[in-house]
């Protein structure tokens, strides 16, 4: 979706302001927000892609005026309500009022180290031969889906070159919407800076994205 998350090339956000010796967390609640988000995700009821789509579906004003942990928190509440684990009334009351969905699993403290060390892979076997080869010229599609996509607006309808051909990966556009993983081959596609940004761009700049096969057309 053309949401507030799609920030590449937008202007007016001001200085980056890196913080010397930045602490890992800036408030105690950020620790809990991180932990609760990961633990709730470990129940296994929604994929990370749905989590991302939920975050970028926050109202743009809300998204852009929230810190990143606030974005996580607001999206997690929506995910938990959508999947029947909690109700809005419970979040307001701060206590359990209903039974709710039974989780597939609950992350136990003694399983945390192994779970985090394992992660979750997103590569999938794929039978179809690669449609594109390294070095090949391609053009990205320039659709504007209202659902989830990982093709940023700045890289839509642009000419680029296949730099690397990867294996199959879970397709976020379908997975985020509950339509299954539908794995597709992934490519690293590199663009010449001025193709993306016009004549004022540093002519030596190259920018790459990782693009699923259906994001690309032969030239």
């Amino acid at each position, binding site marked *: 979706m053309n949401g507030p998350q799609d920030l590449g090339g937008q202007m007016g956000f001001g200085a980056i302001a890196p913080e010397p010796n930045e602490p890992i967390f800036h408030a105690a609640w950020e620790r809990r927000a991180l932990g609760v988000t990961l633990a709730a995700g470990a129940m296994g009821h929604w994929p990370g892609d749905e989590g991302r789509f939920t975050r970028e579906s926050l109202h743009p004003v809300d998204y852009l005026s929230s810190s990143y942990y606030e974005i996580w928190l607001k999206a997690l509440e929506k995910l938990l309500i959508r999947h029947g684990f909690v109700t809005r009334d419970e979040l307001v009351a*701060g206590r359990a009022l209903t039974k709710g969905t039974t989780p597939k699993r609950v992350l136990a403290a003694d399983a945390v180290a192994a779970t985090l060390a394992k992660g979750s892979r997103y590569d999938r076997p794929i039978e179809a031969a690669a449609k594109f080869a390294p070095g090949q010229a391609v053009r990205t599609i320039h659709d504007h889906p209202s659902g989830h996509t990982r093709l940023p607006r700045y890289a839509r309808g642009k000419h680029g070159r296949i730099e690397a051909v990867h294996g199959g990966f879970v397709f976020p556009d379908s997975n985020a919407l509950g339509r299954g993983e539908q794995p597709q081959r992934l490519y690293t596609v590199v663009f010449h800076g001025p193709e993306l940004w016009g004549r004022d761009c540093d002519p030596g700049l190259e920018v790459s994205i990782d693009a699923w096969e259906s994001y690309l057309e032969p030239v």
Partner: protein
Amino acid sequence: MSMSHSDHPHDHDHEHGSDLSPTAARVKALETVLTQKGLIDPAAIDAIVETYETKVGPRNGAQVVATAWLDPDFRGWLARDATAAIASLGYSGRQGEHMQAVFNASGQHNLIVCTLCSCYPWTVLGLPPVWYKAPPYRSRATIDPRSVLAEFGLTLPLSTKIRVWDSTAELRYLVVPERPDGTDGWSRDELAKLVTRDSMIGTGLAKSPTSKEARP
């Protein structure tokens, strides 16, 4: 822009009792409801937080880079199969399942961003800093990386080409900065101390052995 840490200072000292900030109270309510319903284990939350506060951080990535500087075979492995090479040093897992290392060289500088969210190689760098997740960096890194680098105090010659890697899929990128001159004979641990977090994102270079600056 309110995604900067400095814009929500009220959360710092209001973490207990009735002084909870609205956001802290909201998190507490959520955690309480989930705990009462048996959906989360608060001790698991503690363990997750402890992992990223004490075990997983940019020290891991610095060991990877220092090893690549010392061992050409490892460097080659890192270039071909970064996930396996990094795992051989003991670093694997969440947000590092599919790693790719990119190598700075004379005349070639690499910079990592996630314009669409906050994708970041947790296994080697830990949790991303606030600025990495905030709109100023995400909006400018692909269109004007030189101005971004300048804000980090890094001005590259115009003859140095910049390559920006936008992490749009599940590949997670680690920049391998160039080894500083004057470090012949240094041990892996000595070299690792020169490898800053920012040098592995591309917003900095490895520290010079004579430098006293200590940007994290």
